[in-house]
């Protein structure tokens, strides 16, 4: 054990920057891998992480975390706890593992890129811990579902999803490639660790852990809490990076990077967390609506944080973002439930009378704007025509966020001026966008995005054969047994003896 207090040696050992003489800066830190945005090397050496940890402390802490959470998993695995969970909650967990487990592992690439190409030794040191964190998160979030395979075979989508062409997996790959797999170290610090982790997932994980404990899912609650403690540390790489940019006259660069990734994070967050909170979580365990969560934790706390750095709310804040907060995830829920065969979990309609009352209370006007669709759907189920609730064609998918285009819902609910998607004709190809910010992000870096083929582009390009829904499901890696079904076999439509 060291005989000196950490504060007496830490700065010296973790901060070994030096002037290069055998190679030049560009050779050691190519701009493509670590964009300086014109700031000289020495200025970056002032990078100072707010949370300090040594390697021995890190290993000691992590061993304790793993011992604790794997013990919980081992004990609970022998119980009937998972069998007794609400079907909607199970769906949220199956969706979570598929969408998050492998991307966590891939996030290790982003961390290791910062660990090698970060512009200061202190930063590279912290990112190395981040790389170990993300490797752990990938492992633990594939192992836990693995232990549940005998109870829910689709838990194998924790590993499988990101290796398929399922549309949600395409959306996740597109987002995470943009955010960290194909991003430079400086931009990754702001877009992954500051915008996505500090802004969204760190807070989401706190909320999810509490929700898991409420519904009695101790396994998932322990897992998420354990991960969150790592996130809280490594997400702090963004702050000092933003400070360096702002102090050196590059505030606009930081603002642009945040504006870009905040919108993308919002869309995927609405898709996964919005639906889980407001539709899949059992009603008796909902402590807040998704909108309340967003307003308290994201819109207030996170915005306060980036205002501290002199940054402003993104340009689309009032007109697009706050508007979508009222309707976007409701439309996505309706879409995912309708196209349920195309996802690897069982969407829970969440349409019992009590749940509809709760939605109307939390989102005044919900009955008029969204309940009307569910009225027709419910009537079809009650009439013994569930086939009318299933799709016979595809939704258009946004060429930026890769999520179905639901702008007509925003128009019908009174938040958009037109139901139509936004189009861009570029070099002989037509691109479709769900929103102005998605189109803006694309146009800011069209060379980066224009070659990507979304699921609809692939369908129209003949890559999906036969060119029908069955062919698409096979292309997405979904066998009939894996396709999503209504989570409660339409129990919500039969309640109160009305069936």
């Amino acid at each position: 054990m060291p005989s000196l207090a950490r504060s007496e040696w830490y700065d010296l050992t973790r901060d070994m920057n030096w002037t290069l003489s055998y190679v030049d800066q560009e050779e050691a830190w190519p701009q493509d891998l670590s964009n300086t945005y014109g700031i000289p090397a020495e200025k970056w050496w002032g990078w100072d992480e707010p949370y300090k940890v040594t390697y021995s402390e890190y290993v000691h802490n992590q061993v304790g975390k793993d011992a604790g959470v794997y013990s919980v998993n081992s004990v609970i695995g022998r119980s009937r706890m998972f069998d007794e969970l609400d079907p909607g909650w199970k769906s949220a967990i199956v969706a979570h593992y598929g969408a998050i487990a492998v991307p966590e592992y891939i996030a290790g690439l982003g961390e290791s890129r910062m660990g090698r190409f970060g512009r200061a030794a202190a930063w590279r040191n912290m990112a190395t811990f981040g790389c170990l964190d993300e490797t752990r998160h990938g492992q633990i979030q594939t192992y836990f579902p693995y232990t549940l395979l005998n109870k829910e075979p689709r838990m194998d989508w924790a590993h499988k999803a990101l290796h398929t062409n399922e549309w949600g997996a395409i959306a996740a790959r597109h987002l995470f490639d943009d955010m960290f797999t194909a991003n430079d170290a400086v931009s990754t610090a702001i877009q992954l660790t500051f915008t996505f982790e500090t802004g969204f997932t760190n807070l989401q994980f706190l909320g999810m852990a509490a929700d898991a404990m409420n519904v009695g899912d101790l396994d998932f609650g322990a897992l998420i809490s354990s991960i969150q403690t790592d996130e809280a540390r490594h997400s702090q790489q963004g702050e000092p990076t933003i400070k360096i940019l702002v102090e050196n006259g590059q505030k606009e660069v930081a603002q642009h990077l945040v504006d870009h990734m905040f919108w993308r994070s919002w869309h995927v967050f609405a898709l996964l967390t919005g639906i889980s909170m407001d539709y899949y979580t059992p009603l008796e365990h909902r402590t807040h609506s998704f909108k309340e969560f967003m307003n308290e934790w994201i819109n207030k706390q996170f915005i306060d944080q980036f205002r501290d750095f002199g940054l402003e709310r993104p340009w689309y804040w009032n007109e697009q973002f706050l508007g979508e907060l009222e309707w976007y995830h409701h439309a996505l829920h309706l879409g995912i439930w309708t196209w349920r065969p195309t996802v690897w979990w069982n969407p829970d309609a969440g349409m019992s009378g009590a749940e509809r009352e709760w939605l109307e209370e939390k989102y005044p006007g919900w009955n008029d704007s969204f309940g009307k669709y569910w009225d027709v759907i419910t009537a079809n189920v009650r009439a013994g025509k569930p086939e009318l609730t299933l799709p016979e064609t595809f939704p258009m998918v946004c060429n930026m966020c890769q999520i179905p285009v639901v702008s007509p819902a925003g128009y019908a609910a009174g938040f958009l001026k037109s139901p139509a998607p936004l189009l861009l004709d570029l070099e002989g190809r037509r691109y479709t966008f769900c929103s102005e910010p998605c189109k803006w992000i694309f146009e800011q870096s069209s060379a980066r995005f224009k070659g990507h083929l979304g699921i609809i582009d692939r369908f129209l390009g003949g890559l999906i054969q036969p060119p029908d829904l069955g062919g698409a499901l096979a292309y997405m890696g979904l066998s009939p047994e894996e396709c999503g079904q209504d989570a409660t076999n339409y129990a919500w439509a039969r309640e109160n003896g009305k069936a």
Partner: protein
Amino acid sequence: MALFPVQGIFEGDFVVLLVPVDTDDPMTVVAEKIAHHVVGRRVAAQDRPMRIRRQGEFVADEVTVAEANLAPLDVLEVVYA
């Protein structure tokens, strides 16, 4: 006569749909093909004629897809007249 993809929006629905139509289809048939995926599924049926609108302008009922000079993936709205 050839398959032709359009982006279809039915008035009051929540999503933009990929709908394959035929270049020989008149707008009345295009409207029915889009409505097939929506009416009685999420939007209640109305006993009123449907019309096609493109970029805010109505397209005459008898005009075919080929005659309307549509580009693939043009956005067509179906509204009740």
